[in-house]
């Protein structure tokens, strides 16, 4: 440790606080924190949008918002939750945990990592700036043509949509490339691919899904942008275009995206359950291969979003079959989680509550998913609240519950502090009860024919009771979030007290201090088994002594990622205003890349690419 401090004494590396240190950081832990805080802020923003939607629908002929604002609210609720809430919260865990779990000192490309955050922030702010600059996107997150074309969307809202999503996609692509390379190439000695924690496997699968699906969305967004700004007719029927082509392009991205949202939560739960059951994950290989199968099948099911577009019987049968097939690897995972619990010596911490809650509610969403894998049933359920119920069981009951399991589990590692277990359990029960009260009645509403995306409804249709109940549930969830935020700020005011491994957990991130030093590990660990910390404990292997002659080289901070991020912002603003700004942005990006390339990193070659 003393030696490491000796090397770290370089002032540029140490600057631990201050705004400039955060703007130029290339430390994966700080970038993880930036992603986490941004993700939580946007999660709250999207939650407020959801509360407005539920307030409007609480009673028949509600007058909280008008129809146009309602359209913008449900569109932005989805876009914000998906791209600015759940994805960056996943990225926060990837950033924080992947290097620690594989025994590395940073990601393969620390500056690229910073760049992906700044581009993300730029896209996120741009998307939300649309509220103030002529109206937010109001065509749903799927933005079906030709509703999105100039004829029907006359303002700039859909241009904000295309440009922001291309920018956000660029950010995700860069981050995904970085994580795949990190996982492939920066593993500690002995950390073979089949000793990787399941969370790391799920990170890599998510990254591959994004690498292979984002370019398809980018092409669709470019075509839509060209339709709106450069006179093409890709999706305009009157000009010979094909609106169904947009649906294909969107869902070839959109369905893998669903797994991008859920697989990180599955990875988190696969870490939390073994720790608090005090036994290794049941069927590690099966869980990993189930994840890979889900990813591969995820590219072969997109048309189940389009059963009602008249694809013909053969595609309907094929896509119905592939969709139902996905239930098999998903079921494998659920049984393996139950197998992990079975016979375990279970400790019911808050993280464990969320993880077990995840299994229950995610399974409900999974089962309703299999129901509308069947085209005749889907034809009944399409565009009804049944689908809203299904997707929220999977995304709230699945992704969000899993993410909060991770928040409670790793909070001591991230901050050195504990969240209050009492308030945590109150948070859990408010979320768990709230989500079931909100989303379960939507099944009934859907079956009784209430369409999605209507801004109000008349009395006497039999929808009053359950809509009111759902709104009560939504505010219960909000109360849960308030408890969490209170818990968070209360903990952050306390002195750090967390030991290195408070939960007696098996993975490498618990082998270093809480929070970890800037260089993560004083000695790069040697991995001897799949659950390395437990293996060393059970075999009496003491932690290695730091080598007093070792110099730890960390990449120095850099402002080039921020500069290139500004260049991307200029390109985006230019695409929405004047093309000259695009050229200026491109110049900034090229200048930034040159400076970046020539910047001395002082890093060891192990850090790889710069």
């Amino acid at each position: 440790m003393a030696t490491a401090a000796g090397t770290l004494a370089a002032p540029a590396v140490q600057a631990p606080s201050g705004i400039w240190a955060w703007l130029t950081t290339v430390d994966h832990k700080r970038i993880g924190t930036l992603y986490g805080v941004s993700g939580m802020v946007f999660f709250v923003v999207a939650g407020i949008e959801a509360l407005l939607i539920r307030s409007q629908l609480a009673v028949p002929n509600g007058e909280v918002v008008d129809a146009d604002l309602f359209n913008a609210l449900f569109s932005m609720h989805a876009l914000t939750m998906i791209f600015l809430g759940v994805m960056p919260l996943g990225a926060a865990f990837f950033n924080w945990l992947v290097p620690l779990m594989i025994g590395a000192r940073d990601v393969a490309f620390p500056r690229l990592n910073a760049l992906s955050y700044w581009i993300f922030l730029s896209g996120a702010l741009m998307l939300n700036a649309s509220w103030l600059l002529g109206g937010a996107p109001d065509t749903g997150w799927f933005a079906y043509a030709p509703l999105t074309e100039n004829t029907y969307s006359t303002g700039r809202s859909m241009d904000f949509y295309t440009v922001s999503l291309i920018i956000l996609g660029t950010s995700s692509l860069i981050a995904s490339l970085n994580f795949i390379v990190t996982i492939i190439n920066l593993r500690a000695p002995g950390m073979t691919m089949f000793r990787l924690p399941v969370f790391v496997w799920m990170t890599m699968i998510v990254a591959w899904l994004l690498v292979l699906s984002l370019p398809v969305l980018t092409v669709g967004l470019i075509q839509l942008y060209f339709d709106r700004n450069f006179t093409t007719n890709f999706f305009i029927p009157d000009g010979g275009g094909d609106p169904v082509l947009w649906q294909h392009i969107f869902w070839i991205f959109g369905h893998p995206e669903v797994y991008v949202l859920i697989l990180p939560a599955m990875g988190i739960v696969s870490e939390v359950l073994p720790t608090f059951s005090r036994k290794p994950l049941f069927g590690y290989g099966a869980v990993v291969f189930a994840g890979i199968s889900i990813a591969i099948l995820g590219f072969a099911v997109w048309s189940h979003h389009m059963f009602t577009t008249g694809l013909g019987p053969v595609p309907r049968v094929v896509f119905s079959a592939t969709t139902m097939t996905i239930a098999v690897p998903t079921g494998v995972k659920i049984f393996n989680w139950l197998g992990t619990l079975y016979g375990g010596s279970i400790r019911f911490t808050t993280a464990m509550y969320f993880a077990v809650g995840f299994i229950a509610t995610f399974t409900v969403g999974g089962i309703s998913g299999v129901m509308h894998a069947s085209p005749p049933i889907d034809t009944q359920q399409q565009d009804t609240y049944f689908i809203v119920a299904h997707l929220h069981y999977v995304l709230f009951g699945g992704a969000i519950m899993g993410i909060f399991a991770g928040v409670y589990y790793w909070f001591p590692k991230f901050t050195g502090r504990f969240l209050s277990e009492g308030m945590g359990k109150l948070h859990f029960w408010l979320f768990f009860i709230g989500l079931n009260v909100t989303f379960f009645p939507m099944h009934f509403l859907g079956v009784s024919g209430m369409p999605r995306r209507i801004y109000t409804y008349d009395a006497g249709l039999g929808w009053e009771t359950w809509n009111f109940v759902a709104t009560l549930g939504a505010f219960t969830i909000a109360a849960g979030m308030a408890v969490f935020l209170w818990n968070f700020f209360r903990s952050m005011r306390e002195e750090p007290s967390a030991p290195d491994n408070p939960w007696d957990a098996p993975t490498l991130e618990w082998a270093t201090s809480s929070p970890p030093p800037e260089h993560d590990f004083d000695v790069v660990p040697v991995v001897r088994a799949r659950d390395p910390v437990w293996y060393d404990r059970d075999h009496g292997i003491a932690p290695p002594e730091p080598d007093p002659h070792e110099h730890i080289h960390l990449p120095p901070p850099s402002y080039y990622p921020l500069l290139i991020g500004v260049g991307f912002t200029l390109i985006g603003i230019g695409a929405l205003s004047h093309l000259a700004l695009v050229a200026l942005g491109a110049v900034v990006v090229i200048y930034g890349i040159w400076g970046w390339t020539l910047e001395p990193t002082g890093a060891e070659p192990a850090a790889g690419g710069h």
Partner: protein
Amino acid sequence: MAQAAHAAEAPHSSTGIDSRKVLMWIFLASECLFFGSLIATYLVFKGDIPLPAPGFIEAHMHDGVVTGWFPTDRVVDGVEYAGVLNIPVTSASTFVLLMSSVAMVLAVYGAQNGRLKMMKIWLLATLLLGIIFLGFQVFEFHEFGAEGLNLATNQFGASFFVLTGFHGAHVTVGVLMLGSMLLASMRRTGLGPEAGFHVETIGLYWHFVDIVWIVIFTVVYLVPA
């Protein structure tokens, strides 16, 4: 340096392949889907180009032949249409791009074997051949525009210009990278000890863009509608 002590513990790369090269390969996998989607869009509309409105026929009739609508020559309803695609010219530009890949291989060879003058000459040759290819593309776009084909004309125009335009943008990025590499190689320190690696990694990108063009040339120009 003490770095060696560290290196003994943490290998530079678990796979033995440099991280930057792995990154480039995975990026190119992503690019396959990008161009795949553009080509798929082209194919969706390829067999389905409606006849032009009478106004277009009158406006673009030269010596009894209508230009700027169909990719290849055809006669429909007694009206003769001249295809816009000029296969001999584009064959020449395709040849130029293929030769740029040969030049790139020679530049990589020079860089990896310490023959820096050879590397610079062939980097320059690759760069110039890339610029010539782009010149052909500018010429082609200009010709098509003059014949009446633009983004709004029909689905062939839209999907053709967007597909080949984005390919051209990729060639432009490649040219910028080659130019930067060439400038950097003229510094006193040159490209440093990793010259071979840098040139090879840019070469991966360049060859990929070349291969994509071969697919585009085949699908757009050679396979009949």
